[in-house]
């Protein structure tokens, strides 16, 4: 029953061969495994991650592959659909290692699947570079072969609060609504800790079940508390629900922020003008000013992605390409395709990439890269914080619903 899509040599090699000096010799292939959601709850995000992985593999192969000594290795990524289920993802990781004999792993989509797969990678001592599982718990297991290029979960909400703290007048109070799952709660707790340490009063903190159908009761309570900030830590569907119900219940706050939702195109399409002014955190945007090997700048990466897929990439694709890139840098640094030396190279890597600085701490977390805060302005997602990379100034406070058209 398991749907298997195996991606053989990217077709584009033939086309790209004319443009690049030396395509990789046909003989040496570096096989990399990636269990990734093509169906199930994370199907959408899984597809974005796959595009990111594919773009990296294609770019590397067009440039002649991975250089190790005198050899060049062509990259081949083997994908299996994990149906967004951790148990299946772990089984597929095992299969990729023990039957397909992959040399390295790229991560699946989401914290629960990454958590499951990391244990398998560690067992076989196969380095896994992951880009789509941000829960700190993944990195608190003492694993030595698991590396995450993305900023950890607690940064998701904290980056929005940091941005909020720079606004005038400075917001004083915050209400937090969080979905009852590993990642969302870690994010919400991170936000609460940051707020309390930095002089923001948390006036409301409430969990709700994932996929909840109605949130009018908590929003009614929030309305009476008149917080300056409403922070939602959950999923796209719930961020839409909160905005729709806040509007109809006339819950007006100056700053709406969501960890997940506003950066996906669905958000603006579904809400229309009600999406205006909403804040979100993002791992990456094409506006950031980083520059590094292979993809050059963030803007150049965005352009290359758009040429291939026809739309501007969001952070899901960028962090996935970054995971491939980091693996490449480690292989080239180690001058080896064996797990152990590449693991050492990853642990001591200190690189700047289009995605941001990458340097792993002892747990395998990339704690060097800050997140950015974005805001929906005129229906577009623009970077507003940190100031060094901002494309526009944040609009604050959001006008009350009664003053909007």
């Amino acid at each position: 029953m398991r749907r298997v899509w195996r991606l053989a040599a990217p077709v584009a090699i033939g086309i790209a061969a004319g443009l690049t000096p030396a395509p990789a010799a046909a003989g040496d292939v570096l096989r990399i495994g990636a269990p990734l959601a093509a169906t199930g709850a994370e199907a959408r995000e899984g597809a974005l991650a796959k595009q990111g992985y594919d773009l990296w593999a294609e770019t590397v192969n067009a440039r002649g592959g991975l250089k190790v000594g005198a050899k060049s290795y062509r990259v081949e990524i083997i994908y299996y659909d994990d149906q967004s289920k951790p148990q299946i993802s772990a089984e597929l990781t095992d299969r990729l290692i023990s039957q397909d004999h992959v040399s390295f792993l790229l991560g699946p989509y989401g914290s629960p699947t990454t958590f499951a797969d990391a244990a398998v990678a560690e067992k076989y001592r196969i380095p896994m570079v992951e880009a789509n599982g941000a829960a700190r718990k993944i990195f608190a297991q003492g694993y030595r072969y698991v590396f995450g290029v993305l900023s950890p979960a607690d940064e998701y909400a904290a980056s929005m609060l940091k941005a909020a703290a720079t606004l005038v007048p400075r917001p004083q109070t915050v209400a937090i609504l969080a979905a009852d799952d590993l990642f969302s709660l870690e994010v919400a707790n991170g936000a609460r800790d940051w707020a309390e340490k930095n002089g923001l009063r948390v006036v409301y903190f409430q969990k709700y079940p994932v996929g909840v159908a109605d949130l009018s009761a908590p929003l009614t309570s929030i309305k009476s508390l008149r917080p300056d900030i409403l922070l939602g830590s959950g999923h796209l569907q719930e961020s839409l629900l909160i905005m729709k119900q806040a509007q109809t219940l006339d819950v007006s706050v100056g700053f709406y922020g969501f960890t997940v939702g506003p950066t996906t195109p669905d958000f603006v399409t579904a809400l229309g003008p009600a999406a205006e002014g909403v804040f979100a955190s993002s791992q990456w945007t094409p506006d950031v000013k980083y520059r590094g090997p292979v993809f050059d700048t963030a803007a150049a990466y965005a352009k290359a992605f758009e040429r291939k897929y026809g739309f501007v990439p969001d952070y899901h694709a960028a962090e996935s390409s970054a995971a491939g890139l980091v693996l490449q840098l480690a292989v080239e640094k180690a001058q080896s395709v064996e797990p152990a030396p590449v693991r050492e190279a990853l642990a001591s890597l200190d690189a700047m990439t289009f995605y941001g600085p990458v340097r792993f701490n002892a747990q395998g977390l990339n704690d060097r890269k800050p997140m950015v805060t974005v805001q929906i302005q005129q229906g577009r997602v623009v970077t507003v914080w940190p100031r060094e990379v901002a494309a526009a100034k944040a609009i604050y406070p959001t006008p009350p619903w009664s003053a909007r058209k």
Partner: protein
Amino acid sequence: MSPELQIALQNAINGLLLGGTYALVAVGFSLVWGILNVVNLAHGSLVMLGAYVTYWLYTRYRLDPFATLPLTGLALFGLGYPLQRLVINQVIRASFLITFLLTFGLDLLVTNLALAAWTADVRAVTTPYSGRSLALGPLALPLVRAIALLVALGAAAVLQVLLTRTRLGSAIRATASDLEAARLMGIPVARVYALTFAIAAATAGVAGGLISLSFPIFPAMGAGYTLIAFVVCVLGGLGSVPGAFLGGLLLGLLQTYAAAWLGPNYDNIVAFSVLVLVLVVRPAGLLGRVERFRG
């Protein structure tokens, strides 16, 4: 008005509006269960289809979602009739387990077809008036949801009149109360079953259309509504339109107050506790008749 009272009253509005949606979802489910003796686990997927019909009519042709509700109902009626004749009717005398399996399979099929056709994207019907609300002093009455409640009440009233005042309604009720006698009186039972199912599908479609106006929609949204319909039927009693309405409003209020006072994680705990209580104290539901549970 004290803030506590204000919150309590606002939650009464929230609960009633939510309950109105639940009621309309449950009416058709109750009808099929009470009359065909089939627990239709695919009911939620019919609600989902109704939501998408409304969504596509609005986004493709800019047709007002309220104005297209009759079309949505008609579309689902047209789907429901052959669905019952060709599929559900095959197992109409089979055991409960078989009907469960069949309708569960149907639900999976419809949901996954929708997933394949329309992707997992989360969508919403956002009209220029979607965000409006009427101010009742310090309270807010969301306009679209208030109209939706009225539409739900209207649809239920039409259904009640249909069941109690028309020949078709008499035939449906006769079939439900004594199948053999109805058959001997010359009632075309197979057709009555198909019509009942189609009417139920139409109300599910209208409910879906109303839901698409206030809530995000996606192919997997149906499962939650099947569960809601189940609870409402047990609360209110089977096969009765007023029962389904009362059960729906009660469940909406219960969930809203539970979410307000105990937290949103408790809304189902409270709702199901009351469900168990009702099953113990009044197994036929608040407005149900005990005879229905014989045999």
